[in-house]
C-alpha cells in the first residue's frame, strides 16, 4: 500500500503500523451507516474518510436544523405547558 511509503517519508510522525491504520479505518467504517450495509472489505480508506466527513457534516446539519426547530418551539409554545411536558417525561423516566 502506498500509505506505508508515505508514513516513512513524513518527518516527525511516529512509526504507525499499517495494520494499526487498517484496523482504525475498519473501526471507523463500522460506524458509518452507509458502508455498513455494503461489503465492508472492498471499501478503500479514501472512501471511508470521505464518507466520514460527509456523515459528520450531515450530523452537524441535523443538529443545526434541530436547534432551529427547538428555538422556534421554545419561543412559540407556552412556557408552562412545555416545561410541564418535560418534567412529566423526566418523572416517568
Amino acid at each position, binding site marked *: 500500500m502506498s500509505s506505508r511509503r*508515505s508514513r516513512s517519508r513524513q518527518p516527525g510522525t511516529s512509526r504507525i503500523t499499517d495494520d494499526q*491504520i487498517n484496523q482504525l479505518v475498519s473501526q471507523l467504517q463500522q460506524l458509518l451507516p452507509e458502508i455498513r450495509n455494503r461489503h465492508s472489505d472492498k471499501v478503500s480508506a479514501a472512501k471511508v474518510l470521505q464518507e466520514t466527513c460527509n456523515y459528520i457534516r450531515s450530523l452537524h446539519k441535523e443538529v*443545526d436544523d434541530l436547534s432551529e*426547530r427547538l428555538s422556534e418551539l421554545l419561543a412559540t409554545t407556552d412556557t408552562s405547558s412545555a416545561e410541564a411536558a418535560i418534567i412529566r417525561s423526566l418523572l416517568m423516566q
Partner: protein
Amino acid sequence: MASYSISNPEANSNRSRESKRKKRRKMGSGNQIEENKMEPARWKTEAEQQIYSSKLIAALRQVRQNSTSTVTASPAGGRVIRETADRVLAVSAKGRTRWSRAILTNPLRLKLSRINNKHKKHKKMKVTGDVRSKKPVANKRLPALQQKVRVLGRLVPGCRKLSFPNLLEEATDYIAALEMQVRAMTALTGLLTGAGVRPEAVSSDRLGSNLS
C-alpha cells in the same frame, strides 16, 4: 492455621486495596488505560442520552432566563441552542476526549469562525487551496487521501494537528456523540411538539419508543 491467620489479613488488605482502586476507577479519575481505547458504545446507552437530555434542558432553561424571550425568537436563537447543545455534549464527555475539551475551551473561536463562514462561504475554498499548495506535489502519497484527513481534522473540533490514529479515535467518539445528540434533540423536539398539540398521548408514545 498460623498461615491462614497471616494470609487472611493480607487478603483482606489486598481486597480492600483492590476495591478502593476499583472505586477510584469507577469515579473516573484513574481511567488512564481505558482512555486510550475507544469507548464510543458509551454514547449509545439510554442512560447517557437521558443524562444529556436533562442537562440540555437545564442549560436551555438557564439560557432563556438569562436572555429575554425575544432573543430566542430571532434567527440567532438556533445558533445559541446549537452552541448550548454542543457545550452540554462536551460536558457529558467528561473531558476524556480532545474534541470535548476543545469545545469547552474555545467557545468564542467557534462563534467567530461560524459567523465568518456564514458571510464568506468562499473562504473555505481558499483555505483548502492554500493547504494543497503547501504540500509538495512531487510526493508519491495520494493527495486526495491526505486532503480528506485534513478535512476530517477540521470537522472534528480541536483535532487539526493530530496524528492520524488519534484523529480517527477522536472522530469515532465524536460521531457516536453526535448521533446521541441528534437522538436526544429529536426526542426533545418531539416532546415539545407534542406538548402543543396533545400533551398526554404523544409524549407517552415518544417515551415508549425511547425506553424501548
